[in-house]
């Protein structure tokens, strides 16, 4: 039994829904109680989909349990096929139905329906949403993809973009453009907007682009075995990673890398002098393993940040993440407990958090700048504009996203210079943020202090002159100055912090 308040991933059948909802002409019959229909709102509200997800829930009740829940499932399958006329049917159970052991997949297969049935067995008490998506995609591909001759023109499949994915819609468009510039045709995108015919024809492609290992790694591996299709290992998020990806494709296909780099702006934006202030910013990164790892490389190599923490919530990506973390000289954090993530953040005192919606809430509480770079998603992660993460435009978007929550370079200097002026009073915050960032920073102090671990009895006491001096430091670095000074004092057994201690500490930490 695990105590959970918020979760990064839903149950596995929600993963299956992400596949079914992404596709066209596929229906999912889910053996589940009525409350499980909440999952529809993830798609209609968060992603603003204008259609109900193609899911029929059997919505059995307590009084059905003694009677025939199996019949209920078969009726639901029959009705769904008749009413929605899908090309293929997915059939599975949610956590509750798993316990009553009706074997929905088997029952549906036994019905001799006129369309292919893909039974799903997703262990709800062991696995989670990403597994559910990956397994569902794998089962569909395994059951429905047919051997077929290779396309004449070099072509590939894009594997992994789902409904409710973090910027999947735009990543597909960006990769289609990049690959098109190299003369590579997209044979099929799977599952986003795919139909049964697309699944059947997956084998016509020369190779697969594994966009998101979280949702498509099993399918990619299967296609490699069954149809001898290699798949790409580089995830093209970030400038360097996109170049690696293009080089990998060039090796796979023998085609030269002929892409238009003129629209790539991140490198110059990052070199231009206004960005100097980004240097060495302490950043904490958390998300799914794919996005977290990609973001770490961007943060360090393309923006000049210092990565102080790196983690992911999906066990499946643990190895990859830990390896990279080690390379970065930090400890990889693999957990799906948001309280643990919060603890790590409090301890590491980053200046910027790149995370999920969960970290956004943590950041809000701690008064730290934050940008969302990974699922789980919320409604604001589905912008109306084109905003990919992958490829060159993705890099541009990421630059903007990551920089947005920070005080702008020139503005940072102005704030320091004019800090005594009332327009620039400490609580003003970045000027482009309106109300959001204008939290009076001093009010955060008590909470800040409460968060400093183990002050214990030996906590150093601040002299008034030191407190006064601290107030003169710009607000956005004051919290850090306070913590550094205390840390410095504690390490040296200094029990009273004077103005001198403050400047000793400042000198000590200067970089």
């Amino acid at each position, binding site marked *: *039994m*695990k*105590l*959970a*308040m*918020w*979760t990064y*991933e*839903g*149950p596995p*059948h*929600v993963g299956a829904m992400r596949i079914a909802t992404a596709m066209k002409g596929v229906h999912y019959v889910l053996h589940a*109680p*009525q*409350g*499980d*229909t*909440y*999952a*529809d*709102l*993830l798609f*209609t*509200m968060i992603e*603003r*989909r*204008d*259609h*109900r997800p193609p899911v*029929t*829930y*059997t*919505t*059995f*009740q*307590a009084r059905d*349990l003694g009677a025939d829940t199996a019949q209920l499932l078969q009726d*639901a399958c029959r*009705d769904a096929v008749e*009413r929605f006329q899908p090309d293929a049917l997915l059939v599975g159970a*949610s*956590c*509750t139905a798993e*316990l*009553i052991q009706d074997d929905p997949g088997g029952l549906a297969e036994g019905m001799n329906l006129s369309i292919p049935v893909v039974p799903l067995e997703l*262990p*709800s*008490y*062991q696995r*989670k949403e990403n597994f559910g998506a990956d397994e569902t995609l794998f089962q569909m591909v395994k059951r429905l993809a047919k051997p077929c001759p290779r396309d004449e023109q070099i072509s590939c499949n894009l594997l992994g973009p789902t409904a409710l994915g973090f910027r999947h819609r735009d990543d597909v468009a960006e990769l289609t453009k990049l690959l098109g510039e190299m003369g590579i045709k997209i044979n099929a995108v799977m599952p986003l907007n795919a139909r049964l015919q697309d699944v059947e024809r997956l084998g016509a492609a020369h190779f697969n682009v594994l966009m998101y290992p979280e949702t498509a790694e099993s399918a990619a591996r299967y296609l490699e075995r069954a149809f001898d299709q290699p798949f790409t290992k580089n995830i093209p998020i970030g400038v360097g990673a996109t170049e690696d990806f293009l080089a990998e494709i060039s090796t796979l296909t023998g085609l030269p890398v002929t892409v238009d780099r003129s629209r790539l702006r991140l490198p110059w934006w990052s070199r231009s002098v206004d960005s100097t202030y980004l240097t060495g910013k302490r950043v904490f990164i958390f998300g799914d393993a794919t996005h977290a790892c990609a973001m770490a490389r961007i943060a360090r190599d393309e923006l000049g940040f210092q990565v102080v923490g790196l983690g992911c919530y999906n066990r499946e990506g643990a190895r990859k993440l830990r390896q990279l973390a080690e390379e970065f000289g930090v400890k990889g954090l693999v957990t799906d407990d948001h*309280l643990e993530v919060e603890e790590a953040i409090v301890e590491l005192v980053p200046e910027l958090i790149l995370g999920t*919606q*969960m970290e956004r*809430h943590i950041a809000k*509480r701690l008064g730290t700048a934050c940008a969302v770079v990974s699922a789980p998603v*919320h409604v604001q992660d589905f912008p109306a504009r084109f905003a990919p993460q992958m490829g060159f435009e993705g890099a541009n978007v990421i630059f903007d996203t990551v920089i947005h929550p920070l005080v702008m370079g020139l503005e940072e200097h102005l704030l320091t210079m004019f800090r005594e002026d009332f327009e620039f009073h400490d609580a003003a915050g970045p000027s482009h943020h309106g109300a959001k960032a204008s939290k009076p920073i001093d009010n955060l102090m008590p909470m800040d202090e409460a968060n400093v671990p183990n002050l214990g009895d030996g906590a150093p006491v601040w002299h008034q002159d030191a407190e006064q001096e601290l107030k003169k430091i710009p607000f956005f670095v004051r919290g850090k100055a306070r913590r550094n000074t205390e840390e410095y004092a504690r390490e040296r057994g200094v029990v009273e912090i004077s103005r001198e201690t403050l400047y000793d500490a400042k000198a000590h930490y200067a970089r």
Partner: protein
Amino acid sequence: MTAAPTKILKERGQHEVFCGLTSILWLHRKMPDAFFLIVGSRTCAHLMQSAAGVMIFAEPRFATAILEEGDLAGMDDMHEELDRVVAQLLSRRPDIKRLFLVGSCPSEVIKLDLEKAASRLHGIYDHVAICNFSGSGIETTFTQGEDQCLATLVSQLREGDEPNLVILGALPDVVEGQMKLLLSQMGVSNVHVLPTTNHDDDIWVGPNTSFMLTQPFLTDAWQMMTRRGATYIEAGFPFGAEGSYRWLRALVDAWGLELELFEQAVAKPYARAKDALARIRPELEGKSIFFMPDSQLEVPLARFLHEELGMRPMEVGMPYVTPGIHATDMDALPEYCLISEGQDVDLQLARVRKHRPDITVCGLGLANPLEAEGLTTKWAIELVFTPVHFFEQAADLAGLFARPLRRSGLLNMDAAE
């Protein structure tokens, strides 16, 4: 008055409605000293955070003890595991005075006895009141979670002979305050409201207890009160000017209170509410409305919109109908209105498409798809989270329906030419 609807269409098919766990979202706010521990699955935890829309609180006063593969092996171990989780929780949150163990579909299917667990745990933590109720989707829909919670609270009230009035239903504090003020101005004392904000409040029930409901979904709590000897004061629900007036008036009649004092107390708010509604009326009058079954508030709200604002209810769906509670409001609906109980969502959507009502009240899963078909919608969940009861909220309540209509009138994306 027109003749009331006579027939109820009963349907059985796919339901599109939350389970009772969702009630915790407002119950926990109403009871700041309580913690709600759902014993369930990852699905239950995911429902809670999805229905909440965003993760609003650092550490909410609800959580899920997620059953894992290992737990399903043996019942003894499961109780031990639960004890461990509760210990972990209570040490983290020493401020908790009452703990609700909330049953879910998985815990009920495997027959995990939470009542037993609650009494065992109370033996260990005697400073914490521990009890249980069901919020599972196989037993309850949406607002029925509150019903189950209140039924449990009622069963635990002490016996008492002194006359009192118990009012059941969680209301936002501001509304509860308004209601209590009106009652005291009417000369009513010994008023108790369930759920209570404070666990230590002394509330009793007995042969001289009268009770009223502010929420129409409290069937089991209503039965439990009756079983414990209390007398129900029947009234339509206090929405709008007339609804609020009649609800209070029912108490005056039942208790033989002084009529003049009552009229004095309500005069101003009643007039204010009527004025405010008169201003909104032109926006809603004559407009047709369709309620998908969701919060159980459907019949009383349809009564309000029809009688006080002149709207035309085409179909009013309810997850279930309890005549003893809903009859008064239902009788005020027009004859042409179809009352439906239960749901087959696809058949019902077909009726929505046939009628093409001016506004459809539905759950979050259906709203955007219907809007995409050119139908204006109102999310039912907002009706549960917003203060809507009694005189001062009458206009706000009407506004919830007027706003989507006004908005569809405002948007114009055609070229100017």
